[in-house]
């Protein structure tokens, strides 16, 4: 498995863990107050810290296992994979933002707008890394 594919798997795990933590926190807080909890900066900070910690530890581990590959620049196929995955992720994010804005126009709920845009960002990032993995494994470029 290529270093960059391992890296993508780590990021998928980090994003899913961070996302699960965030979703769990918001849903339990919302259940406690009986309505959708407003977005809070500390929860976003903790989400970001989880993401960074998992990503850094994961990359250190794969860097130790394959130090030579870790220091190699992307080759021409990898650059194409990254470019395609980034483009796909952009569409996912764009779609999420459009849906969120449409939702806001109908419901006029700023909290929900924050959560839906934030979720779009998370989903777009996960989609980017999954797309990279798929292209590494099955892509015909």
């Amino acid at each position, binding site marked *: 498995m290529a270093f960059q594919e391992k890296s993508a798997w780590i990021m998928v795990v980090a994003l899913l863990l961070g996302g699960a933590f965030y979703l769990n926190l918001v849903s339990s807080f919302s259940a406690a107050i009986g309505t959708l909890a407003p977005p809070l900066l500390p929860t976003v900070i903790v989400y970001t810290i989880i993401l960074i910690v998992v990503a850094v530890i994961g990359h250190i581990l794969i860097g130790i296992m394959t130090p030579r590959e870790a220091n190699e620049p992307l080759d021409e196929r990898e650059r194409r994979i990254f470019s395609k995955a980034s483009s796909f992720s952009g569409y996912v994010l764009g779609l999420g933002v459009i849906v969120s804005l449409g939702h806001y126009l109908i419901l006029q709920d700023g909290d929900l707008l924050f959560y839906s845009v934030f979720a779009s960002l998370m989903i777009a990032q996960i989609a980017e890394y999954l797309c990279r993995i798929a292209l590494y494994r*099955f892509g*015909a470029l």
Partner: protein
Amino acid sequence: MGRRLPITNQVRTLRERAGGMTQAQLADAIGVTRQTVIAIEQGRYSPSLESAFRIAREFGVGLEDVFGWQE
């Protein structure tokens, strides 16, 4: 995603003819990762013209001896 590309190649055969050159050795020689060489051999990646020339030069053959076109 699983489609095959119209460009065929003889990279694997040429590697075997070149004294069993490994995929990693070829990858180092042409400046790509081993996974890219694997993808080229499996017909899942069409290398750039520059890499195609590098591969051909590595085996001391012409470009058309390495790559072909299959509709």
